[in-house]
């Protein structure tokens, strides 16, 4: 388009330039022709002058001879005659183009001929009959003829002068037009050149920009091509007809088939028979314009094994091509499988554990109940026959049976907690703390414990389990303040953590690492009763809620337990 317009411009300019050049040439030619005619006219005028002076010289030569009669004076006359002849001969040639002048010249010639005859006769008369006879002859002839010749010459001269005037004008005219057309030519040429240069410059700039852009695009292409060949992921372009068009090097590396081989065979042939139907359907979707995201199938390797590939693909309907990237996820799939197997095993193990705890809770408790029950019966029925030591020993049996019962219960509760699904809701921690405190107080009605309750924010969690947390912590606080006359328990919330603080026995922070372990206790059974499961349970509940529990204590000064829970309405459930 742009090229065509440029060509048209150049052609148009050339035509105009040629036309102006022809015009200029013709004007110049005309000027040269006009100049030629001017000089021709000058020539004619000069020749006429010369002819006229020849005529006059002939007259005066004749006079000399007439007066002197001396033969040597006849020579100028003859010379003049010859001179006149030459001039007239040249004139004849010069005015051949002008019939008027030619006629005048003919008249002049005949006049001159007649006069020459007269002068020749006069010369003869003088020679033969002497001066007087010649003088008479002179007086009677000559003057009229001479006048006539002069008139003819004058006419011719004035004609030539008129012609000269015309021709000079013509010459000037032609010269002016020549100058004009050459000037126009120059201006036009300069204009055309300027336009062309401007145009070329502009095109050049556009071209330079375009070249730079293309170079950039080429560089980008080269770069992508490098990625294409470098990528660990497998790039490909597939035709809607079911064949690969282009494959990155990674295909060869991952599957082991030479690329040329893969291009020759429909890609469905490489796919695991079980995945073929799905893949074919997915390809149809692609052909219909739908992109593929996270599609998985298996491709056959050179060695006959299969690799799991994860696909993203985008069809370009106009090109009838699918641009796709595949990733070898075989390892991940294997890991997933292993994980699934592991989960299955874990589930089985859990079920076994479940059955085991069920049987423990059932079967271990029955003999304990028998021990405790029969010891009690013994005490009831045979007390009078036992001494104090006997009764004390029975008491030890009962206490231990009960302790073991508690251990079993708590252990089971602890193991159940690991399997129990959390049923989360918004928990009113204020109400929960109140009911726990109430319950604890009712269990030890004789004690006076100052319980300071501060407002607690609601939490997001399993109400029964959070109740257990609070109950364990508060009962601990009650338990470990037993020996303090001014027992104080504080329940509150600071710095995003709930806390239960007491001024009881506390513990040495050196052993804090044992605080939350199952069956680990920081106090002797003779000091404070307990199974060592309570805090382990509490920690398990808190951590299952996504929270954290920690303690701060000093021996004899009390302990503070702090724990965090997901906020009510939060998403971190």
């Amino acid at each position, binding site marked *: 388009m742009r090229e065509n317009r440029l060509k048209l411009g150049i052609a148009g300019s050339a035509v105009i330039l040629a036309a102006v050049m022809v015009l200029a040439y013709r004007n110049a030619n005309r000027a040269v022709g006009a100049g030629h005619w001017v000089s021709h006219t000058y020539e004619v005028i000069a020749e006429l002058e010369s002819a006229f002076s020849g005529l006059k010289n002939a007259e005066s030569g004749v006079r000399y001879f007439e007066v002197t009669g001396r033969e040597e004076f006849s020579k100028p006359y003859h010379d003049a005659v010859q001179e006149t002849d030459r001039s007239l001969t040249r004139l004849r040639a010069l005015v051949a183009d002008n019939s008027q002048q030619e006629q005048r010249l003919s008249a002049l010639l005949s006049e001159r001929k007649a006069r020459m005859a007269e002068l020749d006769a006069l010369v003869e008369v003088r020679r033969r009959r002497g001066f007087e006879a010649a003088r008479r002859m002179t007086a009677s002839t000559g003057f009229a003829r001479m006048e006539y010749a002069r008139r003819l010459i004058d006419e011719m001269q004035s004609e030539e002068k008129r012609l000269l005037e015309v021709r000079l004008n013509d010459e000037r005219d032609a010269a002016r037009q020549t100058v004009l057309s050459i000037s126009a030519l120059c201006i036009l040429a300069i204009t055309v050149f300027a336009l062309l240069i401007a145009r070329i410059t502009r095109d050049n700039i556009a071209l330079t920009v375009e070249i730079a852009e293309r170079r950039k695009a080429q560089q980008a292409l080269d770069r992508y091509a490098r990625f294409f060949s470098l990528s660990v992921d497998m790039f490909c372009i597939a035709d809607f007809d079911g064949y690969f068009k282009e494959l990155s090097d990674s295909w060869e590396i991952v599957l082991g088939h030479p690329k040329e081989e893969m291009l020759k065979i429909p890609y469905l042939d490489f796919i695991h028979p079980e995945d073929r139907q799905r893949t074919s359907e997915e390809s149809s979707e692609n052909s219909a314009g739908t992109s593929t995201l996270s599609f998985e199938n298996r491709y056959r390797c050179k060695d006959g094994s299969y690799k799991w590939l994860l696909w993203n693909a985008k069809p370009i309907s106009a090109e009838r091509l699918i641009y796709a990237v595949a990733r070898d996820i075989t390892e991940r799939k294997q890991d997933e499988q292993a994980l699934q197997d592991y989960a299955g095993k874990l589930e089985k193990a859990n079920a076994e554990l479940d059955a085991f705890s069920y049987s423990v*809770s059932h079967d271990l408790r029955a003999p304990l*109940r028998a021990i405790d029950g029969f010891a009690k019966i013994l005490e009831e029925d045979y007390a009078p026959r036992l001494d104090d030591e006997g009764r004390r020993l029975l008491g030890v049996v009962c206490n231990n049976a009960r302790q073991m019962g508690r251990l079993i219960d708590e252990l089971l509760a602890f193991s*159940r907690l690991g399997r129990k699904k959390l049923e989360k809701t918004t928990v009113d921690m204020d109400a929960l703390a109140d009911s726990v405190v109430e319950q604890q107080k009712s269990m030890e009605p004789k004690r006076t414990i100052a319980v300071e309750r501060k407002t607690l924010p609601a939490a997001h969690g399993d109400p029964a389990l959070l109740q257990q947390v609070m109950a364990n912590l508060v009962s601990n606080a009650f338990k470990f303040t037993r020996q303090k006359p001014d027992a104080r328990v504080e329940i509150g919330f600071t710095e995003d953590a709930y806390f239960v603080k007491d001024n009881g026995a506390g513990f040495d922070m050196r052993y804090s690492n044992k605080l939350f372990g199952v069956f680990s206790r920081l106090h002797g059974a003779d000091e404070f009763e307990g199974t060592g499961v309570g805090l382990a349970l509490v920690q398990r509940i808190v951590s299952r809620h996504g929270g954290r529990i920690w303690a701060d204590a000093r021996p004899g000064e009390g302990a503070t337990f702090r724990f965090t829970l997901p906020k009510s309405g939060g998403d971190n459930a």
Partner: protein
Amino acid sequence: MITNAKDVEILLVEDNPTDAELTIRALKKQHLANKLHHAKDGAEALDFLFARGAYAGRKVENGPKLVLLDLKLPKVDGLEVLREMKADPRTKVIPVVIMTSSKEERDVVESYKLGVNSYVAKPVDFGRFSKAVEDLGLYWLLINHPPQG
């Protein structure tokens, strides 16, 4: 363990002899054990309840007034006994108290689904155990009035 199968008020289904003895002792204290029959497994309990086999002479309609049922039993387990009782209109109205060592939630849930009237986990502590058994016997036999039918 029974004098007259006709006048049974409490059917105790318990395979563990010591638990049975402790239960009976607790009931005796409240004079509730006079008309008690002790079945040692689920099959026997069903025979008794539906007057089959060794108990063919009984009438289903004659009671008992309360069943104390252990869950883990030989032959037929407690939940199955409960299921069959609650499926038959003649035995459906008899109050059933599950007494078991298990505190497993799934047992509790399943029992209530089947229409159990009470669920008691047997405590290891004999004092508490006796108290529970006495309270149950008293409540279901003396205080509660089951619909006639």
